[in-house]
């Protein structure tokens, strides 16, 4: 066997994850063993999506699929070993990180999503927990179990995607057509969470998520998002005014102006006006000081 499974590190609904070693290179790897016996419909959709998209995406900021093999009627995905994720880091009160660290994580995340979007793929589940960290401090976008290819103009999509707190307003409204902009929204929320060190818009349920979102960022109107009021759930909404620049500055005290601009670009209500990955990457935030930290220097966050 080329790969050894050494320790079980996680178990999800459709897979068990082990840490192991690739014998020929002696490098650490993770093996995601897809449970097949439990699925009466054959290969599970999430597994199919994961294989389908990881096979295409080859980028320093996207988890890399090293190999796939079958053993004992199970499908095994061999992935690079990623010891931590941003959720762990955000929650660990013993870890202090700098504005440069946040900038580096945002830059790597946006580079990854830019590549994903250029390949016509929507991730549809971005959250700190799915932004993994490699032993050399790199961000790796992971978990493509909800991903899909950008649909044709006549295809409809399910709005029941993305973990609630990171869900874009068009999804909250139940839109059947949406674009890459939903992923950018999620990254905007993650950006806020990195600065605040707590979840930015933690709704209790789907209804409260709308309430929380619009209270913080203003209820969209037909003026800046034409026909938004034609969504069925719109007329039940309380209309909040958008926050002033000052309110933002107060909420994100340490953030420079350029960071707030970028965040505003990503958290624009109207998905057509929301910044795309290129606009985000060209934001002044990334070129002004402080420079993004060198991932190599951020490795100490990974020590237990």
């Amino acid at each position, binding site marked *: 066997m080329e790969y050894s499974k050494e320790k079980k590190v996680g178990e999800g609904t459709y897979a068990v994850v082990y840490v192991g070693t690739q014998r020929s290179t002696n490098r650490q790897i993770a093996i995601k063993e897809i449970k097949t016996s439990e699925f*009466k419909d054959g290969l599970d959709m999430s597994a199919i999506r994961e*294989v389908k998209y990881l096979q295409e995406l080859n980028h320093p900021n996207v988890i890399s699929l090293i190999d796939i093999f079958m053993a004992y*009627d199970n499908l095994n995905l061999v992935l690079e070993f990623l010891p931590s994720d941003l959720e762990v880091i955000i929650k660990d009160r013993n870890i202090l990180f700098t504005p440069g660290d946040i900038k580096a994580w945002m830059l790597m995340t946006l580079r990854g999503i830019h590549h994903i979007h250029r390949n016509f793929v929507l991730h549809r589940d971005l959250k700190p927990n799915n932004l993994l960290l490699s032993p050399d401090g790199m961000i790796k976008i992971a978990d493509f179990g909800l991903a899909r290819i950008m649909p044709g103009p006549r295809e409809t999509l399910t709005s029941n995607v993305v973990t609630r707190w990171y869900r874009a307003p068009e999804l909250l409204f139940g839109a059947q057509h949406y674009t890459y902009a939903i992923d950018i929204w999620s990254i905007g929320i993650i950006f806020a969470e990195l600065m605040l060190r707590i979840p930015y818009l933690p709704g209790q349920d789907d209804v409260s998520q709308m309430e929380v979102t619009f209270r913080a960022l203003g209820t969209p109107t037909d003026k800046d998002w034409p026909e938004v009021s034609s969504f069925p759930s719109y007329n039940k909404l309380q209309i909040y005014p958008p926050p002033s620049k000052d309110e933002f500055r107060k909420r994100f005290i340490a953030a420079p102006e350029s960071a707030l601009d970028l965040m505003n670009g990503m958290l624009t209500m109207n998905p057509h006006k929301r910044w795309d990955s290129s606009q985000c990457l060209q934001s002044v935030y990334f070129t002004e000081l402080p*420079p993004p930290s060198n991932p190599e220097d951020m490795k100490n966050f990974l020590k237990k």
Partner: protein
Amino acid sequence: MSESTPVSTANNSTTATPDPVVPDKPPNYKVISDDDLYRHSSQYRFWSFTKDNLKQKRLETNSRATQKIEEDMKKFIGSQTLTNDELNITSTKAIPLTMEEELKLVNFYTQKVKVISQHLNLPTEVTATAIVFFKKFFIENSVMEFDPKELVHTTIFLACKSENYFISVDSFARKAKSSREAILKYEFTLLESLKFSLLLHHPYKPLHGFFLDIQNVLHDKVDLNHMGRIYDACRKRITESLLTDIIYHFTPPQITLAILLIEDEQLITKYLEIKFTGDENSHNIQLDKLLAIINSCKEMILSPDVVPTQDAKVIAAKNYYVQHPMVLINKYRKKREGQESTAEPPEKRLKTD
């Protein structure tokens, strides 16, 4: 802008005025074009071949299966006591399929995949994916190793899931008049044979792109109703064209242009001329080169391998006998007994008399 250079990045000692706003392009700076992206796709990396390559692959699959069949046949003959006539019959009727025969049988069943998918009212993309999956499976595997009949439903079912068109296996089995077990039996083998490459770039999206761009480039000169008719006709033709080998040799936009050319040569020629000559040409594409590629693609599309049912039956029977020589022998023995018994009647009649 801050004037103090951070201590940690003291690498630009040779530059007099470090300017953090416009970073230098790194030495390995490269613009990744859409063509580069396509070359990174698994469709290109694993499933694009020259015609010779493809033929070679099919020959290899065929000879691997043939070898196994011949070994089995030797064992069979060694284990049985056969008359000279019976040996003669096995060596003439139970012979492995040639690569060409295999291909004919595969093409026949690929047509079935298409018809069944359409009969099940599946979206066009699902049908297209099923066709492509099925054909690819039989590049890696021989019909002498896997009965193509057994993969038809498996392929369509996996195509549904891969194209995000989920149907439970039970309701699929009901609609397809098959069983859960039969559908799932080779699902893993299929996935493995596809080299885990599931994302297919079908020509339907480029068709939509060209459809919009043609109207843009030839505005005022195209009739919208006419364009609509062409669009629908092209979509149908794309599905049909996937039955040939074009996807291994051409990119999706090349296939799309070939199909558009078949549908309205005058219009597309005009579009390409405006697009790729003169001032409009910012694409660095040579029109004559492009036309040569599109035309060779068009030729392949216009010469599909339509296999009559009768031919397929003959090949399928041969395939069956070579794998089950005893059936052939028994059939022969029965026939001979029959002949003998027709020679017997006088005696029998005598007895009954």
